[in-house]
């Protein structure tokens, strides 16, 4: 995935030519400015991931900064056994979990979410923006284990193997969590059936 996605993110030709691991090696050898290339290559994706998990732009921005600062400081610990992207995502997710723990936001119970959905259904025509807002709320109501798998798969377009590597879980567990998450969303977004 990573090469194709990297190209799509709009990095320069020189950046695309070098793999993340090559740049990491150059940074380790003292070429600190090369780390800026990695930041430019991944910051959008890390920011989007953080924003989808945290839902606060300022928190997402801070988490993005924290992620790259932590990655820069721990770069000597990166052994290359996993992909750099997986390692970076894992750092970002840990930063997000810290924020979520600080906030201690409880997920909305499924029954409550369904009653809210039923009320909203009678409001009439649903616009695209409203659909996006309902999707955001439905995702927010999911347990974080399901939410992160859905975000990594649906929005970050990672493979199940990559997700399993990032979360340090078996591939089958990643698939089961995704199934369970989609099953919850099916119930929560059932009222959108006619709008889509």
């Amino acid at each position, binding site marked *: 995935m990573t090469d194709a996605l990297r190209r799509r993110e709009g990095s320069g030709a020189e950046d695309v030519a070098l793999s993340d691991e090559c740049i990491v090696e150059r940074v380790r050898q003292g070429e600190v400015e090369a780390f800026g290339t990695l930041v430019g290559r991944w910051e959008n994706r890390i920011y989007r991931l953080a924003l989808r998990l945290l839902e606060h732009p300022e928190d997402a*921005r801070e988490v993005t900064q924290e992620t790259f600062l932590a990655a820069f400081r721990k770069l000597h610990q990166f052994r290359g056994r996993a992909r750099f992207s997986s390692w970076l995502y894992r750092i970002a997710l840990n930063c997000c979990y810290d924020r979520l723990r600080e906030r201690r936001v409880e997920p909305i119970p499924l029954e409550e979410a369904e009653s809210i959905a039923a009320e909203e259904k009678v409001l009439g025509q649903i616009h695209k923006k409203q659909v996006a807002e309902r999707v955001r709320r439905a995702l927010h109501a999911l347990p974080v284990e399901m939410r992160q798998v859905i975000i990594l798969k649906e929005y970050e377009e990672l493979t*199940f193997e990559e997700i399993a590597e990032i979360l340090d879980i078996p591939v089958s567990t990643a698939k*089961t969590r995704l199934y369970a998450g989609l099953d919850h969303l099916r119930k929560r977004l059932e009222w959108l059936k006619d709008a*889509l």
Partner: protein
Amino acid sequence: MNEEKTPSAMCEMSEKLIAYLYRELSADEASAFEAHLKACAQCAQDLRDFERVRQALAEWQITPVPRVASEFKSGLLRPSFRQALRQLLLAMPAWGRVMLGGATALLLLALFNVQLEWTPEGGFRFRASLFPLRAVEPAPSSEMSARERQQIEQLIADMFRDAEQRRQEALAASLQEMTERLREEQRAALADFVQKWNAEQRTQWAVLLRELERRRYGVLTFADLFFPGQDGN
């Protein structure tokens, strides 16, 4: 390994279903699953529903505003105070965190003037306030001793006596002043009376002498020479 709690109506091919949904099956595996779909209404329904959910999920898009790269390149990437504090705490050893926590707790206790007092009954009393506590003055005893009462009464009596003395002195001074003024007025009136009386006496003597002279010596008398203009006419 699968430690996750799975939905109750989940087909055993659910993992294949998820892989098929995201196009992660090989061609052979996809063909096999499509054959399964024709036989399994549950999977077919799940597939339709999940595709609709994915369609809804696709509506939530985010347009990020990347700034981190430029800041990093310009050397401006600096952690916020909260980030720095968190990183400091993470970098600290456990004993360092304990010491910092203890110091913070002591600082807060000092800031809020927290006092812990042991009571004679064996318990303790906890007090805290934002401002320093002042030494509490003992409440006045409801039972006053006889000596104190006597002293207070003596003080009050002295006070009244002094006031009366000052009033008497003021009255005496006022009376003396009034007497002096009356005496002066009487003295002045007496002097005036004596003066007038003397003048009248002299006039009468002059008239008498003139009359005597007139009778003795004729028209011009000795009295006319010494008392001119006092002829009584």
